[in-house]
């Protein structure tokens, strides 16, 4: 019996070392995920892109991911674990991984890092993000057309510029349809917590909102809106199956082309530290089909999408009026420049709320 066990163990170890040898030739690519891969939102989309990557380049690369990595003291260890496991290109897919990624990047200059949605870079650390505010603008147009109460409900995650610029773009668009549009904002203070997100959606509906929009990652708000017979926008992923009669559209994160391009660059030895901020034109995100709306609203949305893609329409076209009633300095010619949007730390006029921490 003991001999059999020993033989078995030896065989297993051998098998392990053989597969390790064949894997050694492949480029190892690692991913750090904020949520579970089944969150059906943010992390789910990153993992879909990883799967697309494997499909495209699977014979040359091997991918590994760590899911549910909190943005606290554990993040640095998780990233370093991937480095130590031999990953040469590592995607850290949430804002809160910025400082931990930078720390590990400084420690391992020969490993390349790609950090999503942050602003700190290094020789071996790129950043990438998408101009989601463009999609928010389209949603704002639709919301204003579809809302009967004239009150929109907005579930925010954290009051960081990415989220604030999304709220502002939404309202600026909605005001072009209904100058008196109101928005109620609830900060969930989390990216992913279906319970909290659902509670926020309920509270917003109780306050009179009839169109729910969210900057959090789960379909919980969509489900609540669906139960209450209201309308909602999905987030990150296609959420139509959680609200077949509810979802108007959804901003879809489509990371696959970027991931494939970056991994190819790594394979070719042409990888450089870069700052990528792509919009509708560069397919960093896409809009889900426009549903549950009349044809004229749909046409308006499609026209706006085409205009933004072609660069003819800018969501932050000057003048942008701040909450204090004064126009914001216009640094980009006829619209706010990228720096102003990336660091956006103010609400526009018409938002009857105070930005947390202001």
């Amino acid at each position, binding site marked *: 019996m003991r001999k059999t066990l020993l033989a078995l163990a030896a065989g297993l170890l051998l098998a392990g070392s053989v597969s390790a040898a064949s894997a050694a030739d492949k480029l190892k690519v690692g991913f750090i995920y904020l949520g579970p891969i089944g969150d059906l939102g943010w992390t789910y989309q990153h993992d879909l892109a990883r799967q697309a990557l494997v499909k495209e380049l699977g014979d040359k690369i091997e991918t*590994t991911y*760590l899911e549910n990595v909190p943005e*606290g003291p554990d993040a640095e260890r*998780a990233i370093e674990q991937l480095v130590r*496991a031999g990953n040469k290109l590592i995607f850290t897919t949430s804002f809160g991984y910025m400082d931990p990624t930078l720390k590990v990047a400084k420690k391992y200059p020969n490993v390349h890092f790609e950090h999503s949605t942050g602003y700190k870079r290094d020789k071996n650390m790129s950043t990438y993000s998408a101009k989601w505010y463009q999609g928010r603008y389209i949603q704002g147009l639709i919301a204003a057309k579809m809302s009967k109460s004239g009150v929109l409900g907005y579930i925010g995650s*954290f*009051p960081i510029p990415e989220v604030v610029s999304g709220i502002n773009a939404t309202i600026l668009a909605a005001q072009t349809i209904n100058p008196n549009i109101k928005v109620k904002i609830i900060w969930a203070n989390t990216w992913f917590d279906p319970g909290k997100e659902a509670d926020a959606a309920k509270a917003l509906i109780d306050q009179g909102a009839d169109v729910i929009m969210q900057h959090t990652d789960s379909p919980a708000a969509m489900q609540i809106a669906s139960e209450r017979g209201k309308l909602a926008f999905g987030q990150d992923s296609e959420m139509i199956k959680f609200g077949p009669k509810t979802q108007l559209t959804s901003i879809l994160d489509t990371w696959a082309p970027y991931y494939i391009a970056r991994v190819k660059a790594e394979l070719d030895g042409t990888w450089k530290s870069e700052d990528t901020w792509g919009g509708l034109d560069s397919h960093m995100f896409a809009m889900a089909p426009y549903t549950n709306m009349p044809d004229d609203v749909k046409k308006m949305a499609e026209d706006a999408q085409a205009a933004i893609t072609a660069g003819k329409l800018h969501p932050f076209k000057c003048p942008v009026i701040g909450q204090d009633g004064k126009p914001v300095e216009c640094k980009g010619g006829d619209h706010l420049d990228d720096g102003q949007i990336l*660091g956006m730390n103010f609400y526009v006029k018409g938002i009857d709320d105070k930005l947390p*921490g202001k």
Partner: protein
Amino acid sequence: MQLVLEKRAERSNTIALVSPLIAIGLTIVTMVILFAILGKNPLLALHAYFIAPLTDSYSLQEIAVKATPLVMIAIGLSLCYLANAWNIGAEGQFLIGAVAGSWIAVKTQGTDAGAWVLPVMFVLAAAAGALYALIPAICKVRFGASEILTSLMLVYVADLFLDYLVRGPWRDPNGFNFPTTAEFDPVATVPLLIEGGRLHLGSIIALLVVAAVAILLGRTIKGFEIRVVGAAPRAARFGGFNSNQLILLTFAVSGALAGLAGIIEVAGPVGHLQPGISPGYGFTAIIVAFLGRLNPLGILIAGLFLALTFIGGEQAQIAMKIPLDVTKVFQGILLFYVLACDSLILYCFKLVFPNRQVARGAN
């Protein structure tokens, strides 16, 4: 025939010693079955969980880093629990300690403050943790309020207070509005012990705490008092021990240790104050305290073991692509078996045949 649990005449000391081993054995058997069902090689999986993290200095350091706050908090909690005082709010005391210590770090940021900063941060954090723990203790002693509830509820107060500070007054002005303070200055950072690693001074402090409490419990009258009040309250009263005073004392000590653990975590591995600095250390420490049988050395081992499951879980995710959920299942199963096996200390299995007489009569 029936299998029943029967109370032993006295607690079995043999079982008390071997029960954790039985529990670990049963856990491993269960996990092997689970891995097999998942189609993963059980031997390699167990290797990734338990052996691989122990084979290189990096992982060993990480285990120590992860275990440090757990052990420090659990040691304090064990004093409370031994004295029959139920402090469930160590998480809150941890957060308040982190906040109080960070106050100095934030206020001295960018100034030429000297080496006094870190020691003062430690003292403030411990003091704040102790005071915060005294709130439920005083409510208990003075008004008879359940310390379980009050200490637990204060966790949320501390959490929201921290949240407010990093979103408002202490927010990093260059942090793009993200709820975090700026990175602490080097003088406000816990020194590292090994170049290039993450092992820090806090782990040494945790070891000192373990030793100090071991001496307190084993060699001093106060330690004896704590154990008597918990084990035999009536006898303690006859002995003239003041149990109210002990509740205040043990709460204060455990609060101070949790607070100290909080600032060490923030000024150490994290480097700044932000929400989410604790992935539930204060609650996990309760498990560590009981897993270690409220014994300082036991707690040290239990803390390291739990840390091992975290690090091993990550390595299993990387090496074997075993989902994180399996690690959580694994930790749950382990606790279940530990508690189940512990019941054997006071109870034993017995087969009874209630129907035998009747059956014979019928024949």
